[in-house]
């Protein structure tokens, strides 16, 4: 079993961190893992993406043409990666700032209004955890408990008081994800 995922959005949205949490959760489940960032000059505002491959066997290429799961968090990423979802795969997007809906009919499409919810919850930094919660609902590639352990590992100890807020966001994301196609 191998799952090939790409998460793409603006720098500053927590794209790389979200991938890292997934990778750590995969590690805890004993999977083979490759976490491959686009490592260009992507700070806040630029585009950022990360490929995460979770597999029961040795992983070959870290650079992929097509993905089982594509998570897009801005319009440029939607334009770039919608065509690269495998037939029958999953596309998950945050509606904020999107100027069009996905066009593909041969894939499952899910929408999550995570930017709006993060604002409503007054916790904009937990945006990526909302998205991750939504992702795990439609594609339970790793267990929620392992995600929380993964988060604990990736978050510096001085920020551990934020763990409950992140878990709340993760759970909220599970509720607000909606199937579109």
């Amino acid at each position, binding site marked *: 079993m191998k799952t090939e995922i790409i998460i793409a959005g603006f720098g500053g949205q927590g794209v790389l961190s979200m991938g890292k949490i997934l990778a750590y959760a995969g*590690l805890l489940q004993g999977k083979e893992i*490759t976490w491959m*960032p686009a490592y260009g000059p992507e700070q806040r505002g630029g585009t950022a993406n990360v490929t995460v491959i979770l597999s029961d066997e040795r*992983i070959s*290429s*870290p*650079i992929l*043409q097509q993905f089982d799961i594509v998570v897009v968090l801005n319009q440029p990423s939607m334009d770039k990666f919608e065509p690269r979802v495998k037939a029958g795969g999953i596309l998950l997007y945050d509606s904020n700032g999107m100027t069009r809906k996905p066009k593909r009919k041969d894939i499952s499409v899910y929408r999550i209004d995570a930017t709006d919810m993060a604002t409503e919850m007054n916790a904009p930094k937990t945006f990526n955890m909302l998205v991750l919660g939504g992702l795990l609902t439609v594609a339970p590639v790793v267990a929620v408990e392992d995600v929380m352990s993964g988060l604990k590992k990736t978050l510096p100890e001085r920020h551990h008081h934020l763990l409950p807020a992140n878990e709340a966001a993760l759970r909220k994301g599970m509720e607000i994800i909606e199937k579109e196609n």
Partner: protein
Amino acid sequence: MEEIKLMKGNEAIAHAAIRCGCDGYFGYPITPQSEVMETLMKEKPWETTGMVVLQAESELAAINMVYGGAGCGKKVFTSSSSPGVSLKQEGISYIACAELPCLIVNVMRGGPGLGTIQPSQADYFQAVKGGGHGDYRLIVLAPSSVQEMADFTVLAFDLAFKYNTPSMLLADGIIGQMMEKVVLPPFVPRRTDEEVRNQCPWATTGKVGRKSNVITSLALEAEVMQETNLRLQRKYAQIVEHEVRFEEVQCDDADYILVAFGSCARIGEKVVELARNEGIKLGLLRPITLWPFPTKEIQRLAKQVKGFMSLELSVGQMVEDVRLAVNGLVPVEFYGRQGGVVPLAEETLVALKQKLVK
């Protein structure tokens, strides 16, 4: 059981170096390998093992600090990326001539010139054919996973000390930046001064009860310099005989062989999967040592396959060594991308079919 960790390739190099008893690191930051020094600075090994970590004022300074440290018999290394490694070439030539063990890490990026920060393998010629002036070689290891970044750091040091010669870890931005599982090597303490004196009797360890050890790459008399050259060549012949390393994936029944190293070997494994799905019997030969090159193995395979294709992040450099090995027996083709662009497995298979599978 040793703990499994998740980390970047660059971080794995730093952790492995501390654990294998490294005495010192001298470097100057450059993307995409800055995490090597960053990790060392974060780990503060000077407080635990006593290892020195120093950000030099330039690449030239860094490689000459390595020259000095290696001359003292210390286990020292430097790391950089393509433009920075070009700056180090003079020092590397001196170290090779002075027959000192050390490790140089090159996490390659797109060139020529200042180029780009994206991955590349276009420093192959520089690494395996000399790079600096004069007739010398480096032992060049090409890791293709984060685990190998750790393992080959240890191996590269071992080989450097076995042959008193500089070795190089030739990685690229992909292997340096990606995170994978890794089991770090066991912890080995740094050698004591006495152990260094015993293991490196040539080192400048302080003249106590012996005649002076002189380390130099200068010999104004031509005959003396010729003897140095011949001695180096005898050593290189030993390395060629004993240290060739490679990995094969599904080569036994293969009609065609893809030759690729480092990150391209990972892409190559996927090409093999895709080709086999279409009924094309493709195998992958992955040189682990780029010098010494697995020439004999390629010669052996050339007698049983219909052709080779080299896959590289360059305009085609290693392909020349494949052609030298094959020596016209079967076609040798090339496919690659340049300047930081990375070929996908799918497009590589299309190229393979166009160029080779007739």
